[in-house]
């Protein structure tokens, strides 16, 4: 039986992307589903090409779950950005989340990580 619910238009991502000098600073504000994670990945790669960025900093402190898909999407992003000349650093992984990633057996090289924003920016060399 069909319902009259229209196909949902894309909800804006609960994340902000700011240009700061040669870097992109990405803040994720709320849980992302798989489709949104992939969209964020695409958006960022596009920005890297368009803005000629040298670095991407992704703040995931607001994420209470990083599962295998999210971890792999971030790792793939870092790899693809690197192929296009930008370095990626992920900051703000909560201790519980870090422990869970280890238990989960995520062995994919999870890019560069840093404790917080300052340390991340320092690593990017701003």
């Amino acid at each position: 039986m069909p319902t009259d619910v229209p196909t949902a238009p894309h909800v804006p991502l609960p994340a902000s992307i700011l240009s700061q000098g040669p870097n992109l600073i990405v803040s994720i504000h709320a849980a992302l589903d798989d489709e949104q994670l992939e969209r964020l990945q695409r958006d960022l790669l596009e920005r890297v090409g368009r803005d000629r960025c040298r670095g991407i900093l992704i703040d995931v402190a607001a994420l209470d779950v990083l599962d295998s898909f999210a971890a792999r999407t971030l790792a793939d992003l870092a790899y693809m950005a690197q192929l296009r000349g930008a370095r990626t650093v992920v900051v703000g992984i909560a201790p519980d989340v870090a422990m869970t990633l280890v238990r989960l057996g995520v062995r994919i090289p999870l890019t560069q990580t840093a404790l917080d924003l300052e340390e991340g920016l320092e690593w990017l060399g701003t």
Partner: protein
Amino acid sequence: MASEAVRGDQPYDERVVVELVPVLRRVVGARIKDPHTVEDLVQETLARLMSSSRRVDPDKLHQYAAVTARHVVATYAERNDRARNRSHLLADPSDAPPPTEDLLLQEDREFVAAALERLSAEDRDLLVAHEVQGQDTTTMAAELGSTPGAVAARLSRARASLRVEYLLAAEAIDPPSDRCRPVLRALSSSDRRRQRELDASGHLLECETCSQLADRLFERRGQPAEDGVVRVPVSRDADVVTARQQGREVAARAGFSTSAQTLVATAISEISRNIVKFADRGEVAISLVTEDGRQGVRVVARDVGPGIADPDVALRDGYSTYHGLGLGLPGAKRLMDRFHLSSVPGEGTTVTMEKWLT
């Protein structure tokens, strides 16, 4: 789903739409008396159908149009107190007895008549005696050689069946299987023992029709059922997030530390993703359990999907990565204390996993 979208962006043929007008007049006219309002609402329904981004199979269009008309009428009723008082039959899953007498007097008496027709003679007589002839339960109990309490319970079940039959009649739905009616009635009457006997939640996973009707009878998404089980229907990406958030809440209620909550939420995320990726739809049921005085959280994820031919192999690391499953199943297994996977190829997969407070 695919068959409903085949016609792409093509607008409806005007003749098809014109043919709908009498159908819509009948559906709207059965609920609204004022002819001008009927005409307005018919036009509004047509406008909605024309502007809808979805194209519906011609043979389903009448049914779809009827549903749309009902929504238009319902929206109108919300703006209208008098009408709202009458539209409670479907909206009311609680024990508050629907004033069936009012219903019989109102516009949709033809649907009520059709619905009564489908009830057993006993149920029908009970309802008519109580709601129409105004007999009280004591009198009825005396006549039937029963007790007022037992009569009240039978009345409540009869009303629940009437709600189901009314919905089926009003929307011209023919349930696709013999199991549908018993399951819907058990759901409508909140009879959990009967629901278990019939494996109602299993049926809802298999049967698109009942699954949608159940959503109409109750707001099911993410709501805790009365027995404390939180059920989250899972069919798209966003549901994975809902399921794991509900899991975290249940784990928090069980007294789990935030890191244990994170383990549970992450394991749910992994197994729900498998449902979205490899099955049409499924359900994650999360409940609190106790064993030997210990508190735990149990998660049961079921789907209607292709199933897994060899669960032992699927749970091995490496296999799943190679087959695109990521770390899903073996990862979830590592996060939980107990993990069991059973699967029937061609039917579906059930994952049961538990985490216990230490």
